[in-house]
Every structure is written in structure tokens, then in C-alpha cells.
């Protein structure tokens, strides 16, 4: 899959009209661990699969809170993700200081997309190697998918990362039930979607992170005990569905 001639620079088009550097950046997202985002009428939920504990002391953070009404889950280069997170946090803080209000989520992601686009066009920069699922709440919940191509998509539900196609299939199958799901149900759906993308080497015990934001619920990452509680709940609730 090496197309050597047109892939050195992001400013070079291929004869088929493709930018290979941008596509290679999307591959970096597919290397990251899977993460799922779903929204219901009142809540937006992010569920992320954590790297198995082993070599490092700290667990790699996949879900980053940005403001009290907004947070994101990442897949790809963590260093790039931290830069983007820093930018979003600064923007939100600055907006709160000036306007004493929460940054409207759609505006923020539009500005993020506009900031990422030059990296796909200038010779002296490269695309950000991270895909993000941004969950936010302002009058209603939002899930936005932002990719290295600077594409921003408003989603009802989405999954990105390694083997995420299986998660997306699960989400598509259950799409109609998300809108009126309760908080617990929507989290369980997220966990079940995540389970679809597990590789063969993951056992029954997986480590996940859950975060949610919604009506009268500021962006909150659940504790380890709560994550285990929901893991068990998902197991019992959705037994017929798990193939």
C-alpha cells in the first residue's frame, strides 16, 4: 500500500485526486484504542477502552474534560491530542471570561475544524494525528467527530479507533433506541458497542473509562467503581444481544 510518488508532502495531490498524507494521518487514528460516543435526549456519553495495565505506572488518558459542559475522547497520537485539548480548554475559558456563558458546542467544533484545515494544506505543517469524539451539552446534547482531515461531523452515535467498524455496526443496529434511553441504558449501549470491537487477546476483564454530560449534569468522568458497576450492568442487561 505504498504509493511513493505522491505521498511525501501534504501539498501534493495524487492523480486520483487524493491527499495521501491526510489519509495516512487517518491511519494513525485507526491505530488507537477504540472509543464510542452516543447521545440520548438528555445525555451525551463517551466510553473508551483503556490500554491493558502493564509497563507504565500511569494509565494513558483517553477522555479529557475540556469545560464543565464539554469533554472529548481521543484515538491516535496522544501528544497531538494534548495540543488540541489545550487549545479547546483555552478557548472555553476565554469565552467564559468574556461572556460569562458556556461556549456553544457547534461553534467550538467549527472553529476547531477551521484551525485544523491549514495543516492539510500548508507545506510546512502536517495534519494532527488524532481523531476525537467531542461530547457536549448546551440546551441539548451533542456528539461531534473530528478527524485529522479537519472534517467535523455531528453524530447521533459514533465509534473510532482499532476495529471500530464492529462498534459502528452495533450502533447502527440500535440507533432508534438511543433517543429515549435512560442514563443507565445509554451507558450500557456504549459498553456493548465497545465489546463488539474487542480483539481476541482481551479477556472478560476489560478496563474502560466512562464520561457523560447532560441536562443538570456537568461533564464528569466516572470512578473505577462506577465503571465496574456499569460493566456488570451491561453484562446482565444485554445478554441476548452479545454474539
Amino acid at each position: 500500500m505504498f504509493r511513493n510518488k505522491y505521498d511525501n508532502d501534504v501539498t501534493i495531490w495524487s492523480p486520483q485526486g487524493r491527499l495521501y498524507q491526510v489519509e495516512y494521518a487517518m491511519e494513525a487514528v485507526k491505530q488507537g484504542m477504540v472509543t464510542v460516543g452516543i447521545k440520548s435526549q438528555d445525555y451525551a456519553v463517551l466510553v473508551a477502552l483503556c490500554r491493558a495495565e502493564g509497563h507504565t505506572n500511569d494509565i494513558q488518558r483517553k477522555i479529557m474534560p475540556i469545560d464543565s459542559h464539554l469533554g472529548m475522547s481521543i484515538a491516535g497520537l496522544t501528544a497531538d491530542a494534548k495540543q488540541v485539548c489545550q487549545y479547546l480548554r483555552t478557548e472555553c475559558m476565554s469565552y467564559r471570561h468574556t461572556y460569562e456563558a458556556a461556549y456553544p458546542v457547534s461553534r467550538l467544533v467549527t472553529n476547531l475544524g477551521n484551525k485544523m484545515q491549514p495543516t492539510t494544506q500548508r507545506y510546512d505543517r502536517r495534519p494532527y494525528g488524532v481523531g476525537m469524539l467531542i461530547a457536549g451539552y448546551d440546551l441539548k446534547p451533542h456528539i461531534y467527530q473530528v478527524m485529522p482531515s479537519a472534517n467535523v461531523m455531528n453524530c447521533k452515535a459514533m465509534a473510532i479507533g482499532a476495529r471500530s467498524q464492529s462498534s459502528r455496526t452495533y450502533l447502527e443496529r440500535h440507533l432508534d433506541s438511543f433517543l429515549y434511553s435512560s442514563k443507565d441504558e445509554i451507558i450500557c449501549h456504549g459498553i456493548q458497542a465497545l465489546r463488539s470491537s474487542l480483539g481476541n487477546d482481551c479477556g472478560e476483564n476489560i478496563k474502560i473509562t466512562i464520561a457523560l454530560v447532560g441536562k443538570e449534569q456537568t461533564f464528569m468522568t466516572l470512578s473505577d467503581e462506577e465503571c465496574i458497576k456499569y460493566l456488570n450492568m451491561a453484562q446482565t442487561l444485554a445478554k441476548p444481544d452479545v454474539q
Partner: protein
Amino acid sequence: MLNNYQSSGYPLWSNGPTPGGFYNFTGGQQTHKLPSELVTEGPYGTKRNTSSITTGSSVLGIRFDEGVMIAADTLVSYGSLARYQDIHRVFKINNNIILGGSGDFADIQSIKRNIDQKMIEDQYYDDQITMKPKELSSWLTRVLYGRRSRMNPLYIDVVVGGVDKQGVPFLGNVDLRGRAYEDYVVATGFARHLALPLVRERKPADRDFTAQEASDLIRKCMEVLYYRDTRNMSKYTVGVCTTSNCLVEGPYNVNENWTFAANIKGY
């Protein structure tokens, strides 16, 4: 190598003639000097004008159950001269916000231009997200406070009002020093002394004003201000902002009654 030299900001030489500038060949005293008004420092070392020239007088805002009303007369004075008599000082900013400006009118026009540019920015995002009155009030506070901290104030006293997306009315007052204040009645200038107590006295303890009550109070206060504030005139406009509509009405006229003048003796 030499490409970025000009943009690096370093002058090519110093202590010599500046191209395009007047060079004093004979040396010694400078022959061209700026007028003293422009170089004399003001109090506290200020170098910019902190007084107002053409001014608008009072603005009054009243919040009622469904929205807000902001009234101001149509006069811009030049000191004590009633110079511009048909100036609308209450503006519709967007479908949720109205703003009444008093103080130096040039500064009002300047900040209004900035605010209009902000509204245009909102429009070209094309996402149906519009600024709320509290957000505009907050932004104005930050701007005015920053200007006063740099000893270069915008000499204005502004009433901002409107309704937010959930239909909750907002009414606030921001002044030249960046002091912000929210209440069911706010006023600037002489209205603060004459109209505020009048409205507060008539406020029912357990509920908001109705639209009719607010309207009557505005009419009454404009009348009082016309009789008692010497920098007012009888013509005024009223901005009304509710969930269903937002517009500036007028100009209206105060019901003048000068028959008592016949009884005045001694002048």
C-alpha cells in the same frame, strides 16, 4: 537571507533623518510643534481626552414579565446646546437584544459599530446561534474595564436588555468604568436620580410589572425627566424586546403641560 529583514522591525539607522519626515537641518530648536492641547498631559498622567463632547442624556430601562423596555430621548447635546434633536439612542442589536446609550455619543457610535460587527460575525457562522443579552453585557463590561484600566475610557453609560433563549428577560447597566449591574429597573444620568425611585416605589412586591404598567411608567418618567433635566427634550424612542418581537418604537412626544407657567412670579 535578506528576505525577512524589513519585517524584522529593526530600523536601518537611528539618530538621523527619517525618510518622509521633516528633518531639521539647522539643528537646535524644533521649529514645528504640536499645539499644546494635544501634548499637555491630563490629570494622573493621562494623555487622552477623558471628557465628553457631544452627549446623550438619560436612558431608562424597565423589565416586565415578558421582556424589557428601554427608553431614551432623541437629543444629543453639545455642552448645554441642544444640538442634534433627532438622534435615536436606543438600538436593536439582534432579535433578542436592545441597547440604549448615553454619555459621549461618538463613543456610543464607536462601540455600536463594534457590536454590529460582532452580530455580522454571528451571522456568517450560519448556525442559528445568536448572542444573548447577558453575554453582550458581559463582553461590554470586559471591554470598558480594559479601556479604563489603560486610562483611555469610552465615556459611556449603557443599558443592555433583552430575552434569552428560554424567554427569561435580562436588564443590565454597564458604565464607563466597567461596572455592571442587573435589576428590574436601571437608568443612567439624571434618570438615576429622578426615575429610579419613581419606578421602585410602584413595584409590586410579589410579581413583575406587566407590559402595560411598564409602558405607563416609561411615559411618566420621560415626562418627569423632560420637566426636570435641563439636557432633555420632549421627543423620545422606546425599544421593546419580548420573546415574540424586538423593535424600537417612536418617536413619541411627552404630554407637555405648561399652563402652570402663568402662575410663576418673580422671573
